[in-house]
């Protein structure tokens, strides 16, 4: 098994521990993006945990801020901050809040939580790199439901028009948003052609096929003068059979029994 597959599994285990302990929600979204995060932090992103504000670093923005547990877990795993910070996640007096918050948390580029903000800020960072002749890249992970926001399409049009080929969007397309299936709430399809029409080069991949994920990231930018979009087909709650494709796990926190069963499936120590 590749190291990144193991890393993804580790992230899923940590997310379960964190959400179980905290009684917090949004488990499913952290599980669906775990493979993508593992690939990013397992070799794609040019970052330095010991020097989080290194000027030449690649920027990563988790625009779907409710997936914070997954991000905190991988940042701790990579050594951006001590793992014991995860222990009181979401609890009174903790460092780590229930949406991505960067105050006092190394490695987090942007605080998010309200959907549809990350891509615009990323456009500003990518444009700054272009204007300053700097080589860093800007990655934004978004949710499918987030693409309902008009601001996403303002930013998408901007990035295409300004040829920001140092900008990469990854959509964690797990097909479930807050009140139901994406196709039933506000269908995004045809999705890839929307991005293409906005001046991007978009690819659709299986977001859980690590080899495919890694080889796709290796091709960035997909095309000169165009921003890259990876539409990653994923499964909400991936890795835990009773959480997969279940809307409930956008909200529910695993109780003791569920936690034990989930950890067993993920091969983790309880």
């Amino acid at each position, binding site marked *: 098994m590749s190291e990144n597959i193991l890393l993804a599994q580790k992230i899923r285990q940590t997310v379960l521990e964190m959400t179980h302990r905290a009684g917090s929600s949004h488990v499913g979204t952290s599980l669906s993006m775990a493979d993508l995060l593992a690939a990013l932090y397992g070799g794609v992103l040019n970052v330095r945990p010991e020097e989080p504000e290194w000027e030449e670093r690649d920027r990563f923005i988790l625009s779907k801020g409710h997936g914070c547990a997954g991000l905190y877990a991988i940042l701790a795993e990579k050594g951006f901050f001590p793992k014991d910070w995860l222990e009181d996640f979401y609890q009174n007096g903790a460092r780590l809040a229930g949406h991505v918050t960067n105050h006092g948390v190394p490695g987090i580029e942007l605080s998010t939580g309200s959907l549809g903000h990350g891509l615009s800020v990323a456009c*500003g960072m990518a444009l700054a790199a272009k204007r300053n002749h700097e080589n860093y890249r800007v990655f934004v992970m978004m949710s499918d439901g987030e693409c309902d926001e008009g601001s996403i399409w303002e930013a998408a049009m901007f990035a295409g028009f300004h040829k920001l080929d140092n900008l990469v969007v990854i959509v964690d397309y797990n097909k479930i948003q807050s009140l139901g299936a994406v196709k039933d709430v506000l269908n995004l399809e045809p999705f890839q052609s929307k991005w293409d029409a906005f001046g991007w080069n978009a690819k659709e991949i299986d977001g859980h096929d690590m080899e495919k994920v890694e080889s796709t990231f290796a091709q960035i930018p997909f095309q000169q003068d165009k921003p890259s979009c990876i539409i990653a087909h994923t499964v909400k709650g991936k890795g835990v059979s009773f959480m997969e494709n279940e809307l409930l796990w956008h909200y529910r926190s695993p109780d003791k029994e569920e936690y034990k069963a989930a950890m067993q499936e993920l091969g983790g120590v309880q």
Partner: protein
Amino acid sequence: MKTTFFHALLEEAEKDERIFLVVGDIGFGAIEPFRERFPDRFLNVGVAEQNMIGIATGLALSGKIVFVYSISNFPTLRCLEQIRNDACYHKANVKVVAVGGGFSYGALGPSHHVTEDISILRSLPNMTVVAPGDPLEAEGATKALIQQEGACYLRLPRAEEPQVHPDGFQFELGKAAQVQDGEDLTLISTGAVLALAAEVTQALKESGVKARLLSMPTVKPIDEEAILKAASDTPAIVTLEEHSIIGGLGSAVSEILAESSGKKVAFQRLGLPSEFSSKVGDQDYLKEHYGLSKDKILESIKGLLKLV
């Protein structure tokens, strides 16, 4: 003051290469010199204000000092959450500039009336709010906001208002500027109604009332010291603003007075009622309708002084 603002911005941009100008497809006849002089530090995002503030934040977090320019409520209310979550929360150097404070665009209708901006923006953490009263204040404020870390809001009128302060006036962020001293009453104004406030002060003087006139361009942080001194030195305080009486200068001053342990003063807020204008008309017409004319202000002040 638009011209003054752009002149000052251009001058500072010559000295500081971090200064960047982002516009939302607004500024015909005003932005051109900057765009021509600094094409690499200029950006027109198109008609997309949410994206505009997000991009400005991204640029600011990459080391730029970003002035975002538009008119009316477009760069504030349309993208309020981006200002709050992106610019303010991250203490990003995003300076939002809106032309058209109050009824500047009177006849264009209520969509273009900027009458709640100070109230709304003042309540955001990490936000500095400035409404210059004359061109000297506008020039000083523009320069001061470059030095002020974090998110700022600069409210400008549309027209070229007259100079009220003497040549050589030094703007100080967060400080009231005394235009005239007096002991019968203190009139505090913010924004472009300063010239009107000066006319009122002069008329009061002619009728034997010695009014202190304070210009209060910085509404946040408010100059608490100057307010408390006015309360101590004069028996009455009147605030004047081309803005809703809810949440603007009048509210900011009353918050200080209500919590002070000093002596009681007669107090009145002059501004706009919390309503959408049902009248069609230019700035002066609408101001007159809502009592923001010299005669009506004098009448209000004299009424208040009878209570003293």
